[in-house]
C-alpha cells in the first residue's frame, strides 16, 4: 500500500475510534449535570445515586476520548503535512480556538468536579459539571466548524501562485451554514447515543429487579431522551440533506447511487446487485422521496453522479470526482435507518413502561441491551458517509486527498504508527469496555454521607 492509502486507513481508524467516545462525553456530561441539578433541587437521594453511578461511566469514557483526541490534532501535521501547509491559515484557527476556549475549560472543570465533591459548596460543585458540559459542546462546535470548512469552504481566498489559502473572515468560517446545521445534528445524535446507554444499563438492572428506584427511573429517562433526540436528529439531518444537495451535489447523488439526473427521483431502501449504474437485480423504492429530501419538492431535480462528474471535469480538469459509491450508499442507509430504528424502539419502550409498568417479556430486555449498538453504528456510519462522500477532496473543490499527504513520511513509518495505534486502541477499548461493564454490574449503591464534618477532608478519587 502507498503512504496515501496507509495514511487514509490510519485517519479513518483513529477518527472512527475517537468518535465512539465523543458522543457519550457530549451527552452524558449534560445528563449527569441534569441529574445532579435534580438532586440539589428535589433533595431526592435517588438522583445523587444516579449522578455518581453515571458519573463514573462518564469518566471512564471521557478518559479514552481525551487521549485519542490528542492524536487527532497531531496527525494533521504528521500524516497530512501538505494539507496543513495549504490550509493552516484557515483550518488552524478553529483548532487553536477549540483548545484555548473549550478544551481548557472542559479539562479543568472536570478535574474540579471529580475531586471537588467535598471541597466545594454543593452549588459551586454543581456549576463545575455544567461548565465542563458546556465546554464539551463548545469544543464540538469548533471541531465541526473546522470540518464544515472542508465540506464547504467559506471566508477564504486562494493566493495565486503560492498554493495556499488564507482566511478572510473568521466570522464567515464560524457561521458557515454547514457548521450551523452539522452541530445540532451531531449534538442530538450524541444524546441518542447517551439515551441508548441509559436504556441498556438500566434495563439490565430492571430485568434483575435491582435497585428499581434508580434504574426504572433511569430507563424512562433514557427512552424519552432517545425518542426526543432521535426526532430532532432526523429533522436536522433532513436540513443538512438540502444543504448538501446545493453544496456537495456529488455526495447527495452518491448517497442514492443515482447516476443520471432525474426529476421525481425515488429513494431505494434496499438494493441487491451492484451499484455501478448498471441495472440492479432487486430493490425496494419509495417514489419521489429522494427529490423530496434533496429539494423539498417531490418533482424536484436531483443531479446524477455522471452529470456532476462531467461538470466537475469541466471545472477542475480531467479526473475522477466520485467517491466509492457502495460505501456512501450503504453508510447513508445505515445511518438514517439505524438511527430511526433506535427512536422507534424507544417509542415502543415508552409505551411498554407507561404508568410505572415493568415489562415481563425477556425480549424487551434483549432489545434494550443489544439495541445499544444502533445509535453507535448510526453515528459511525454517519461520519463515514460525510467523510467518504467528500472524496476525492479533503477540502471540497480546493485540495484533493492525494495532494494532502505528507511528503517526507515513508510507508514503513506509517505502517508502524498504524499498527501501534490500532493495537493500542483495541487494547484500550477492551479495558475500558470491561471496566464499564464491571462498574455497571455493581449497580448504584446507597450513597454514604457524613453529616457536617467540621473541616472538609482531602479527596481521593484515584
Amino acid at each position, binding site marked *: 500500500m502507498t503512504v496515501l492509502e496507509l495514511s487514509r486507513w490510519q485517519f479513518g481508524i483513529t477518527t472512527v475510534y475517537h468518535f465512539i467516545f465523543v458522543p457519550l462525553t457530549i451527552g452524558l456530561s449534560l445528563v449527569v449535570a441534569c441529574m445532579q441539578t435534580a438532586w440539589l433541587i428535589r433533595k431526592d437521594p435517588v438522583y445523587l445515586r444516579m449522578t455518581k453511578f453515571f458519573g463514573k461511566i462518564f469518566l*471512564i469514557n471521557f478518559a479514552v476520548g481525551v487521549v485519542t483526541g490528542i492524536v487527532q490534532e497531531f496527525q494533521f501535521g504528521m500524516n497530512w503535512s501538505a494539507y496543513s501547509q495549504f490550509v493552516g491559515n484557515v483550518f488552524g484557527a478553529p483548532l487553536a480556538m477549540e483548545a484555548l476556549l473549550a478544551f481548557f*475549560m472542559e479539562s479543568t472543570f472536570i478535574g474540579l468536579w471529580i*475531586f471537588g465533591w467535598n471541597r466545594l459548596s454543593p452549588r459551586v460543585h454543581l456549576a463545575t459539571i455544567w461548565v465542563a458540559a458546556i465546554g464539551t459542546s463548545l469544543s464540538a462546535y469548533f471541531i465541526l466548524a473546522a470540518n464544515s470548512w472542508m465540506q464547504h469552504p467559506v471566508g477564504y481566498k486562494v493566493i495565486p501562485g503560492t498554493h495556499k489559502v488564507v482566511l478572510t473572515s473568521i466570522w464567515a468560517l464560524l457561521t458557515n451554514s454547514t457548521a450551523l446545521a452539522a452541530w445540532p445534528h451531531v449534538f442530538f445524535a450524541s444524546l441518542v447515543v447517551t439515551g441508548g446507554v441509559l436504556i441498556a444499563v438500566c434495563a439490565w438492572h430492571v430485568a434483575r429487579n435491582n435497585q428499581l428506584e434508580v434504574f426504572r427511573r433511569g430507563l424512562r429517562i433514557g427512552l424519552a431522551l432517545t425518542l426526543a433526540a432521535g426526532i430532532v436528529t432526523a429533522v436536522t439531518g433532513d436540513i443538512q440533506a438540502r444543504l448538501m444537495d446545493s453544496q456537495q451535489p456529488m455526495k447527495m447523488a452518491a448517497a442514492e447511487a443515482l447516476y443520471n439526473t432525474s426529476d421525481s427521483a425515488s429513494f431505494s431502501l434496499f438494493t441487491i446487485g451492484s451499484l455501478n449504474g448498471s441495472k440492479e437485480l432487486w430493490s425496494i423504492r419509495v417514489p419521489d422521496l429522494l427529490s423530496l429530501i434533496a429539494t423539498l419538492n417531490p418533482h424536484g431535480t436531483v443531479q446524477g453522479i455522471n452529470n456532476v462528474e462531467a461538470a466537475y471535469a469541466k471545472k477542475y480538469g480531467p479526473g475522477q470526482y466520485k467517491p466509492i459509491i457502495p460505501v456512501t450508499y450503504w453508510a447513508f442507509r445505515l445511518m438514517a435507518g439505524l438511527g430511526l430504528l433506535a427512536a422507534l424502539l424507544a417509542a415502543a419502550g415508552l409505551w411498554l413502561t407507561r404508568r410505572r409498568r415493568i415489562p415481563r417479556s425477556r425480549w424487551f430486555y434483549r432489545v434494550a441491551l443489544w439495541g445499544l449498538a444502533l445509535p453507535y453504528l448510526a453515528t459511525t456510519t454517519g461520519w463515514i458517509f460525510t467523510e467518504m462522500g467528500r472524496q476525492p477532496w479533503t477540502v471540497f473543490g480546493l485540495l484533493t486527498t492525494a495532494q494532502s499527504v505528507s511528503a*517526507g513520511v515513508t510507508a514503513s513509518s506509517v505502517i508502524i504508527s498504524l499498527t501501534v495505534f490500532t493495537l493500542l486502541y483495541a487494547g484500550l477499548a477492551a479495558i475500558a469496555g470491561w471496566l464499564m461493564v464491571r462498574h455497571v454490574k455493581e449497580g448504584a449503591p446507597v450513597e454514604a454521607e457524613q453529616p457536617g464534618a467540621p473541616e472538609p477532608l482531602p479527596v481521593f478519587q484515584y
Partner: protein
Amino acid sequence: MNLATFWFILIAVLWSGYFVLEGFDFGVGILLPFLGRDDTERRVLVNTIGPVWDGNEVWLLTAGGATFAAFPLWYASMFSGFYLALLLILAALIVRGVCFEFRSKVDSPRWRASWDRAIFAGSALPALLWGVAFANIVRGVPLNAQHVYTGNLLTLLNWYGLLGGLVTLSLFTLHGAIFLGLRTTGELRRRAKRAATGTALAAVPLAAIFLAVTQVSHGKPATDVTAALAAVALIGGAAAALRGREGWAFVGTALTLVLAVATLFGDLWPNVFPSSTSAAYSLTVNNASSAHYTLVVMSWVAVIFTPVVLAYQGWSYWVFRQRLSPSDIGSKQTPPVSGPDTMKSVGGRS
C-alpha cells in the same frame, strides 16, 4: 515587533506553561514507584496531581494548535519530520492518560502494579523525548528546499539531543519531587525531599553543561543572560529544596524551566525550524507564519482568553492546595444517609 514574532513569543509561553505544569506531573509519575512503598502511599502521590494533570496537558494541545494556526509550515515540517518520535510521545501520553482513571477502578495489587509501571514509563518517555526534540530543533535538522525533513528517528538521537533529553528528564523529576514535598506530609514528604536532593545532583550539572554548550554554539547576548538566570534559578531552587523551603524551591525550578525555554526560543529566533542542510532552507518566523488577518484574529482570541484560562486554572490549584497524607485515606466512614443539606460526602469511592 511584528505579529509573527508576537506569536513566536506566545508559543514559547505556551511551551513554558506546558513544561512548568506537566513537568511536575511527569515528575510525580516518574517518582511514583520509588517514593510510594505501598498502594496507599502511591494513591496519595497519584491524587496530588489527580485534579490537575488533564488541564496541564491541554497546554500541549494549545501549543500544537497555536503552531498550526500561526506557523502552518513549521507545524507541517516539524510534525511530519519528527514522525516516529511523536508517535512514541503520543503512545506514552495515551497510556499515561488512561492510567490515572483506570488504576483506581479495580482493587487488586497486580492490576494496580501494572498501571504504576505504565504511569512511570508513560511519564519518563515524554519527559526524555521533549528534551531530545527541542535540542534538535535548536541544533537544526536536515530539511530540503521544500522544508521537508530528510533524516530519520536516529538522526535525532545525537549526543546533543540526548543530553537535552536527560536535562528535561532530570529537571522534570526534580520539579516533581519538589511539588510532592509541597503536597504531602510526614514520611512521604521526607522521602520527596531526599529524592529532590538526589535528583538535583544530576539535574544541576546536566542543565549547566547543556546551557553552556547551547550558548557557545547558538547563543546571543540576550540569551546568555536568560541562560545564566536559568542556572541561578536552578541552583537557588536546589539549595532551597535542600533546606526544606519547598515553596521557594518550586519557584526556583519553575523559573528554571521558563528561562530555559526562553533561552532556546531566543537562540532559535528569527528561525523557527532551522535546516542543517542549508541555512537557505530554514523555516523562519516570517516565511513560516500565517497571513496577517489570521494572526490578528488569533491575537485577539489569545489576549482575551489566556487570562481567563489562567484565572480558572489558578483557582483549581487553590481549591486543591491541601496537603495529602496516607492517614486521610483511612478516614472513610459509612454513616446513615441524609439529604443534600448535610452533604459532606466522603466520596463513597475508593
